[in-house]
């Protein structure tokens, strides 16, 4: 499939890094600010759609994307079921524990019943699930877009 005009390509080149950083920010800060895995993944996947449309790229590593998708889903489900050892499904066993993965706790300010800020290294399993679902959504939506786009344009070239 053909490339688009140099104006479009230049603008996509300029906007690639800020959009990617914004999507990664939405995913990684999912436990602090509005957003989460699905939202940030959709942003990065739309970036992939822009790249596909503007550059007409045909060589995509579909095996790698499928692996990322299945791996994200597996990590999510396993993290959820690991909470059963602490008593509840999806129990947040990492928060405040000794395992140094997202284990900081939120210090409440005196006089306030809830805080409006929190350290980024907090959240426990919620942060891990955010990242896993983010990777899964990136891979899934990119695969849908890439497969449909390549299907349409390959058929166009054949005819």
């Amino acid at each position, binding site marked *: 499939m053909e490339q688009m005009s140099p104006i479009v390509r230049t603008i996509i080149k300029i906007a690639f890094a800020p959009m990617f950083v914004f999507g990664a920010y939405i995913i990684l800060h999912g436990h602090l600010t509005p957003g989460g895995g699905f*939202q940030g993944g959709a942003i990065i996947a739309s970036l992939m759609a822009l790249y596909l449309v503007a550059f007409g790229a045909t060589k995509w590593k579909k095996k790698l994307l499928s692996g990322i998708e299945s791996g994200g889903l597996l990590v999510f489900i396993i993290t959820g079921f690991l909470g059963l050892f602490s008593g509840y499904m999806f129990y947040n066993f990492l928060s405040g524990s000794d395992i140094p993965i997202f284990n900081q706790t939120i210090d409440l300010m005196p006089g306030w019943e809830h805080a409006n800020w929190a350290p980024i290294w907090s959240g426990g399993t919620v942060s891990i699930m955010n990242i896993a679902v983010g990777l899964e959504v990136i891979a899934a939506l990119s695969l849908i877009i890439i497969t449909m786009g390549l299907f349409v344009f390959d058929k166009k070239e054949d005819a």
Partner: protein
Amino acid sequence: MVEWTIFLFDAAHILILVGIVASALMVVKFKDLISAAIALAACSLLVSLEFLILQAPDVAIAEAAVGALLTTAIFIFAIRGSRRREEY
């Protein structure tokens, strides 16, 4: 001061609602299917602004990314695979 800000807020709210209805009508009325897809993207973007006004930023982000970009890309792929203009 407070009354002015509340008035502006309501005015923006009403404008967004009118824009949603207008762009949705455009989607139905357009014979050029790519124009209809772009109008659908505009409708989706306005709906995401409406979600932001209604204090649901999570849904607003998801709606803006999925509705305004991904579905538009899929519709444009589908239109490129078939004919561009609607016939009746």
